[in-house]
């Protein structure tokens, strides 16, 4: 086989997610009264980027064959914190941003420590830490409020050169600064290796614990970037339990749509980003089709069901039934 074919095979999940997203977004913008305009794209981008950050966070953990059910809560907690800290002079704002990111990193690190060194199953461990993070968020913001440096917020949720949504630029920057180095580092490879086969990785002398720990910690960081962005987008902090849970569950859906295997070792954050954008577009489709309002949730559910079933078509090509079982 030629090299590019291997590349293609490796990126298949990501490309499929990209394809789904493009098709959905094309349908959406073609039917939007305002068409494919800068405003429409900006609106979609701002909303999509939030989930994209959380989905990226989820991806890191899922790659290690774990799962982080606290990402939504870290997202909320950092949102609440940012609504206190990211204000004032540029200097104060900068310090605030750093503080928020550090807290996110810390939350991720706590998850990592509990899962790796405490040897707990990630699902329950993160359900529990998620409750703790939510509780702290609620302490910070017993009811919605707070404020944010609005100049910064407007700049980051606005447009660059009047066309490109700034949020997409930030997303790209985060991919380049966090994801790319991680995925190409020894630790990143260790995370993949641990997710694919922990025993084999251990026997091969791979630093699995450090790799997994880094993945959990960076997941916290990415969720915090999402939390910051939520603050920029809404100008406030709010500890809304249901919304935190929703983001956690959406992030899992996005990750799967993005071709990341929940069994670990496979997939990329880029795929998850497109998965997130595609997932968000499902909601947007409601605008362009005239549905009875009470049928909308059903419509969304069915689209989600269809989207997640798409991958099953590959199954009909499987000719050796043992391949069903991985």
């Amino acid at each position, binding site marked *: 086989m030629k090299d590019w074919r291997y590349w293609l095979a490796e990126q298949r999940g990501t490309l499929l997610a990209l394809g789904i997203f493009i098709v959905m977004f094309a349908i959406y913008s073609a039917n*939007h*009264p*305002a068409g494919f*305009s800068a*405003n*429409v794209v900006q*609106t*979609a981008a*701002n*909303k999509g980027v*939030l989930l994209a950050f959380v989905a990226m966070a989820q991806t890191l953990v899922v790659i290690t064959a774990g799962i982080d059910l606290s990402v939504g809560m870290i997202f909320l907690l950092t949102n609440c914190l940012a609504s206190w800290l990211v204000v004032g002079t540029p200097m104060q704002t900068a310090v605030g941003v750093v503080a928020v990111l550090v807290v996110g990193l810390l939350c991720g690190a706590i998850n990592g420590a509990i899962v790796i060194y405490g040897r707990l199953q990630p699902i329950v461990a993160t359900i529990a830490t998620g409750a703790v993070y939510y509780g702290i968020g*609620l302490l910070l*913001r*017993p*009811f*919605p*409020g*707070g404020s944010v440096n*609005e100049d910064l*917020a*407007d700049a980051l*949720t606005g447009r660059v050169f009047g066309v490109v949504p700034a949020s997409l630029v930030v997303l790209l920057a985060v991919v380049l600064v966090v994801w790319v180095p991680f995925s190409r580092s020894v630790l990143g490879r260790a995370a993949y290796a641990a997710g694919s086969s922990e025993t084999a990785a251990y026997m091969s002398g791979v630093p699995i614990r450090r790799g997994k720990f880094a993945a959990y910690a960076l997941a916290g960081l990415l969720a915090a970037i999402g939390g910051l962005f*939520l603050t920029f*987008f*809404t*100008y*406030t902090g*709010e*500890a*809304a*339990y*249901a*919304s935190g849970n*929703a*983001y956690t569950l959406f992030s899992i859906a996005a990750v799967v749509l993005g071709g990341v295997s929940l069994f670990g070792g496979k997939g990329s954050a880029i795929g998850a980003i497109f998965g997130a954008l595609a997932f*968000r577009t499902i*909601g*947007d489709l*409601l*605008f362009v089709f*005239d549905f*009875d*309002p*009470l049928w*909308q*949730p059903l419509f969304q559910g069915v689209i989600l069901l269809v989207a997640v079933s798409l991958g099953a078509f590959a199954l009909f090509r499987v000719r050796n039934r043992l391949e069903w079982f991985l």
Partner: protein
Amino acid sequence: AGPEVVKGPAAEPDCFAPWAADTQFFKFPKKDGPYRIALANGYIANTWRIQMVQTAKAYAAQADVAKKLKEFKVVSTGEDVPAQISAINNFIDSGFDAIVVNAQNPTAFGPVIKRAKEAGVVLVAFDNILDTKDAINVNVDQKGLGALWGKWLVSHVPNGGKVLEVRGVAGTSVDTDRHAGIHEVLDGSGKKWAVTEVVGKWDDGVAQKATADAIATNGPFDGITGQGGDTGIVQAMMDAKHPFVPFGGETENGFRKFCSAHAADGLKCSSAGTGPAQVAVAIKTAIAALEGNVVPQSVKLPLAIVEDPNFKAGQDFFPDQSDNFFVGNSFPTCGINFTAQEIMGQTKENK
């Protein structure tokens, strides 16, 4: 192209009552109808919201309203605030004339409010209103509601005593305001109160469990107040054979059924709130603003209050309707009065 700030009174002063003495009045540039109006709802999966959406559709379909509307579109975006913000942005970009919103978060809509103002779109918030002076709020006096319940207990539990307070969803302003209202009145009454607070999340099941636990460990109580899930609270009292005591609560049909049935045994109720029909007031306000009429920036909704011994079947509650049905759907001053059948039967006729 924002509204002009003018002097009151409003066009229909009885319906569009200003929130306070210093409330501003808006006069938007008159637009020619028919209008395109959108309802940006958030969460959808509970009876209140479903009933609200039904009412909105029923109202928009009423002949005199329908003729003013070119399009009435409803979108529910779920619990996620950014999705709702984006929905409003999309409505603005799509050229809607007015947007009615039940905000998931009162403080989060600053940037959208700015955009709506620039685009000359009328933004009307109701139920969960917006923290702003730049959009129209159709307000329920949440704190006043709490105070009302507080007063009910003060007057019906003459010597003070043990009170169970079942709260709503933590972290929301509605919960905090109602709580504050209750306590302000209790504390100011000069009587001695021992309040047990539990969280019922405005949900019958949760409230019922929390009440049962509270009764088993801290009971019995001399009075109860609940922000929601009140049917469940009464149910828990009955299951625990707790004596019936005065109760200040919301407007669920089931709760009022109990109040009516057990008033003689001591379940003396004050049932007050604002039903989902307030969405009709919000739409009415939006249309009035688009027509260039003067409206207050903050509209004060009357509370639908029914207190013991005035519970009348078929009017204040509906024995053969769902327990989850919210009563209190009439705002006579606005000419808005829906029967239960009108709301719940809406979709069926449309099919």
